[in-house]
């Protein structure tokens, strides 16, 4: 029986290759994901381990709020003598490590960007220096060392003048060294500029402050004791960790991000494999059906049921394993492709040589092989039901009638339960991870609709096929009839495509909603004419230029605006810090209680609240509430007004920026909103502002429309990545169409011969196949779009309170339909050619 399985694989090369290809792609994504994330992991490990080399303990500020930008507030330089005099300390040095310094290239643009940090750091005394320098470390305030990658990107050589921007005006430095850490090839998109300590403090706006103090223990003290000693003497808002602990906690921070990335990529890989399993199932179902006679013949010759199951399962095992091996190998190459994909969208991640773990190898091979065998098992078991006598009969095994009703019941139940799981996940009603429930729900709905779809094939084929039939005559008619001939087969093929399209359309709808709500938020709340923000769209900008910009002719108001985070026992949240005197000119609030005057009068411990926040905390005007800022300071605010903020622009409350320092935003601001004088010439004012911003290359000026466009383009970049990853699932499903068509054509050889004999041209033959592919693709598209809309409606429900307005982008969805049809045409190229090249006589061979 083994040799029969092998011969079957060989005899049906095309089918084998196509089935295998589906698995190859899925496994490739899994292996690629692991290699990719392991590689990043390793690179970060190396960076952090190296950067704490020779350091026994690290003193940093204690972060009271876990912020998105993960920048700890600095600690006072006055702690250094205290640290030095602590028992067990041999040496200590303060250092700066600030993620918001920009190296400017020769065109005047910051290097890197797109959220990757650009560090400004201080050269350390020899004992604590963790960087290696090609050239040397900076020794004077006019010298800088930068990393080699950044230097290469901008074409800087040692001795060149390099401009670096920080909190103060950008200024040029002499490049004296290239800095590197260990064996790390690349910091990813991140760059580093190293200055002398005083210059580093100056450029980062941290005069009299450090980001951390590195401590070395004397010979009699262990790092653990050292950290304990330090903790005892240091104030509460400062913490001391051993070097190892510090390395670990840095790893953990990054690990969280990598973990998220890994999960996201694995979800996409899972989708591709899920789709691939449909293809495997379908292919084996069809071929087993076609081989009914063969099995029956084997049975008559004395093969028992187990031998037949084993033969089919072995076939699956061989395909699955071989495909998994290829997928694994391709996955290693694919890791670089993922990296390039991210790089292309500006998200550059560090690397230090590909890491191929044993776990990656085992998991990839196991998943691919097991999935193939399991997907083939149902058809294999069905094959055993072949009675020997059926070998003598014409035609294909018919499904037992009883299973159909059961199948529909299961399908409906699965779809319903899936929707419930999804809703439960969305509203957090069920315990556990909401996202996981949404995923499980989506999976169940896919399966449910896929099981149900054989019943939907006929009406849907009529719906999408009728226009073809009307315009394309008999070829269209035959295509439609062929597509409903074996509804189960068409359904499984279409369902595979449905999954990809459902996700694509869901993402498209969701993105349209987000775009709409961002535009809405800007329209409704932003009163300023111009907005100053970071060129990368993420980072904070220095506060320094506010004065200079205010002085520009035609500028009425330049108002700094900070969006930041707070902590409280009742939950953490976001808030806005505004400059009370000018805030009312640049922000339009929909007041419930209070007025713009309330905003103008805002005292240091007064706040105006978002109505939703007030309701949630049961706060009235006049009530007090306490929050903890990032620096650990507790502020007790009194509510002086409430407003309605559907789009959640402001956050939970708005307060005066006199406390900005406590929120860790003393020197920086999220944006600066500018209001122009009545009747001012916008272009003239803009060039005036541009002039003032020359020393600040990290700041850009935008009007409201430009702001919307730039947010939208960032969103598009993200969408691009998601679509690229989903494309794999869609491609796998196209293989499914090719496979099904090829197998169907094989079955209909004699019919095709007859058609050709009675006068069907090759062109018409190709048309029939092509239209069948288009109909199948469109059935998948319709099901997919409907599911996508359902997903979008369900998942966006809780966001409705936050200004998310669901808009169905009809144009995009129609475009998706057209693309699906086009994909069908592409999938049909091979099979159509084959069909049209059939030798009429051979096809007719009845003698």
């Amino acid at each position: 029986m083994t040799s029969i399985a092998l011969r079957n694989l060989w005899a049906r090369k095309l089918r084998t290759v196509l089935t295998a290809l589906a698995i190859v792609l899925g496994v490739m994504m899994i292996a690629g994901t692991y290699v990719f994330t392991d590689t990043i992991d390793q690179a970060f490990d190396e960076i952090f381990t190296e950067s704490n080399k020779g350091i026994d303990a690290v003193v940093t500020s204690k972060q009271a709020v876990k912020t998105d930008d993960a920048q700890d507030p600095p600690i006072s330089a006055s702690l250094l003598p205290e640290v030095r005099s602590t028992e067990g300390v041999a040496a200590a040095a303060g250092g700066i490590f600030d993620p918001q310094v920009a190296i400017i290239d020769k065109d005047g643009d910051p290097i890197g960007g797109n959220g990757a940090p650009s560090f400004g750091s201080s050269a350390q005394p020899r004992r604590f220096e963790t960087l290696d320098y090609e050239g040397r470390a900076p020794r004077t305030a006019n010298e800088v060392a930068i990393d080699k990658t950044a230097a290469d990107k901008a074409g800087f050589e040692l001795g060149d003048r390099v401009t670096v921007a920080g909190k103060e005006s950008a200024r040029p430095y002499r490049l004296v060294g290239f800095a590197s850490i260990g064996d790390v090839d690349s910091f990813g998109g991140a760059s580093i500029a190293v200055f002398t300590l005083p210059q580093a403090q100056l450029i980062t706006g941290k005069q009299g402050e450090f980001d951390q103090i590195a401590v070395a223990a004397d010979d009699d003290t262990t790092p653990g004791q050292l950290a304990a000693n330090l903790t005892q003497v240091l104030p509460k808002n400062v913490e001391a960790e051993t070097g190892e602990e510090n390395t670990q906690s840095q790893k953990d921070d990054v690990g969280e991000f990598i973990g998220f990335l890994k999960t996201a990529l694995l979800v996409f890989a899972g989708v591709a494999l899920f789709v691939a399993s449909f293809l495997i199932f379908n292919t084996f179902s069809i071929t087993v059906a076609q081989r009914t006679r063969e099995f029956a013949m084997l049975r008559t010759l004395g093969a028992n049921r187990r031998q037949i199951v084993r033969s089919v399962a072995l076939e699956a095992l061989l395909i699955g394993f071989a495909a998994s091996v290829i997928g694994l190998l391709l996955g290693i190459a694919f890791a670089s492709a993922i990296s390039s994909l991210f790089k292309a969208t500006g998200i550059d991640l560090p690397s230090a040589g590909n890491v191929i773990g044993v776990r990656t190898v085992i998991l990839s091979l196991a998943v691919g092989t097991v999935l193939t065998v399991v997907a083939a098992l149902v058809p294999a078991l069905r094959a055993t039901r072949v009675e020997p006598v059926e070998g003598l009969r014409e035609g294909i095994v018919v499904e037992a009638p009883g299973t159909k009703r059961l199948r529909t019941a299961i399908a409906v139940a699965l779809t319903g339960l899936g929707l419930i799981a999804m809703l439960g996940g969305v509203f957090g009603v069920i315990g556990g991870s909401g996202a996981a429930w949404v995923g499980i729900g989506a999976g169940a709905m896919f399966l449910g609709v896929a099981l149900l779809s054989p019943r939907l094939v006929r009406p849907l084929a009529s719906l999408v096929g009728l226009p073809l039939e009307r315009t394309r005559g008999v070829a269209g008619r035959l295509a439609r009839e062929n597509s409903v001939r074996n509804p189960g087969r068409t359904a499984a093929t279409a369902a595979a495509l449905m999954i990809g399209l459902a996700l694509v359309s869901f993402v498209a709808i969701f993105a349209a909603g987000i775009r709409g709500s961002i535009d809405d938020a800007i329209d409704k709340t932003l009163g300023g004419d111009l907005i100053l923000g970071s060129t990368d769209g993420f980072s904070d900008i220095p506060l320094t230029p506010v004065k200079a910009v205010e002085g520009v002719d035609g500028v009425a108001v330049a108002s700094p605006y900070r969006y930041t985070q707070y902590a409280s026992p009742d939950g953490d949240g976001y808030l806005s810090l505004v400059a009370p005197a000018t805030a009312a000119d640049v922000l339009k609030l929909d007041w419930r209680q209070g007025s713009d005057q309330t905003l103008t009068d805002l005292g240091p411990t007064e706040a105006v609240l978002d109505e939703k926040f007030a309701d949630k905390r049961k706060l009235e005007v006049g009530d007090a509430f306490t929050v903890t800022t990032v620096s650990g300071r507790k502020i007790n605010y009194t509510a002086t007004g409430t407003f309605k903020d559907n789009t959640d622009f402001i956050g939970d409350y708005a307060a005066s920026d006199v406390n900005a320092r406590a929120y860790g935003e003393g020197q920086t601001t999220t944006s600066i909103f500018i209001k122009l004088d009545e009747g001012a010439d916008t272009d003239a004012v803009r060039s005036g502002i541009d002039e003032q911003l020359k020393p600040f290359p990290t700041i850009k000026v935008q009007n409201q429309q430009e702001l919307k466009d730039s947010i939208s383009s960032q969103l598009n970049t993200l969408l691009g990545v998601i679509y690229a990853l989903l494309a794999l699932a869609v491609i796998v499903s196209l293989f499914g169409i090719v496979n099904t068509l090829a197998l169907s054509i094989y079955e209909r050889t004699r019919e095709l011969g007859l058609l050709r004999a009675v006068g069907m041209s090759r062109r018409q033959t190709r048309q029939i196949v092509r239209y069948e592919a288009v109909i199948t693709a469109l059935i998948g598209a319709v099901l997919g779009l409907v599911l996508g809309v359902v997903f979008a409606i369900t998942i966006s429900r809780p966001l409705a309170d936050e200004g998310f307005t669901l808009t169905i982008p009809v144009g995009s969805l129609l475009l998706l339909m057209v693309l699906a049809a086009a994909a069908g045409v592409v999938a049909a190229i091979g099979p159509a050619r084959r069909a049209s090249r059939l030798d009429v006589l051979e096809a007719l061979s009845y003698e």
Partner: protein
Amino acid sequence: MPNEAIVSATNVTRVFGEGDASVKALDDVSLEFPEGRFTAIMGPSGSGKSTLMHLLAGLDRPTVGGVEIDGVALNDLDDGKLTEVRRDKVGFIFQFFNLLPVLTAEENIVLPLSLAGRKPHRKRFDELVEAVGLSDRVSHRPAELSGGQQQRVAVARALLSEPAVVFADEPTGNLDSKSSEEILALLRTAVDDYGQSVVMVTHDANAAATADRVVVLVDGRIVRDEPATSPEQVLDLMKQPA
């Protein structure tokens, strides 16, 4: 002879395979089929009768020699033109798999016209369906028809476009005797009443006796070519060696 040849084969040879393994299925056969006549081609298995029919119908190409249908030399035609000749000038009736299972009887009958993008002449269609006795079955699918009915649909399809010639390949080979008689009677009527030219391959002497003329092939050569009179005479023709 008042009748012009509607189909003719001139010195046709068909060799299958190459070198030592080659088989000469037809060996220098020349034959003319006058318009409005019913010809039966007979011969034992492997005599080349089916190969001859395939060549005459433009389903295959001769190794040597030429075939003409209704004044068109098939040798010069590419696949597309050849397909058009089959569609417009030839009607086919096969033994099995005559009909597309997904189309109704009516759709099967008008299939060659649909493929050509033409509409059937309604009156002709109705007459024909009436003649083959399927008036009340036209909307049925092949699976809902008996073998004899299916074959009558095939006959109607072959006749509908009034082709230059109808080729029938063992049209009764799969039918009971009553259905066979009906099919043969239909073909006979088409020839007598409408002047249709019909070429039928068969090994059934009774069927061959319905024709006007019997051509007997043995080993790729014509050994007999005589008017048909009765089944007994046809059997005799078959028995006599060349």
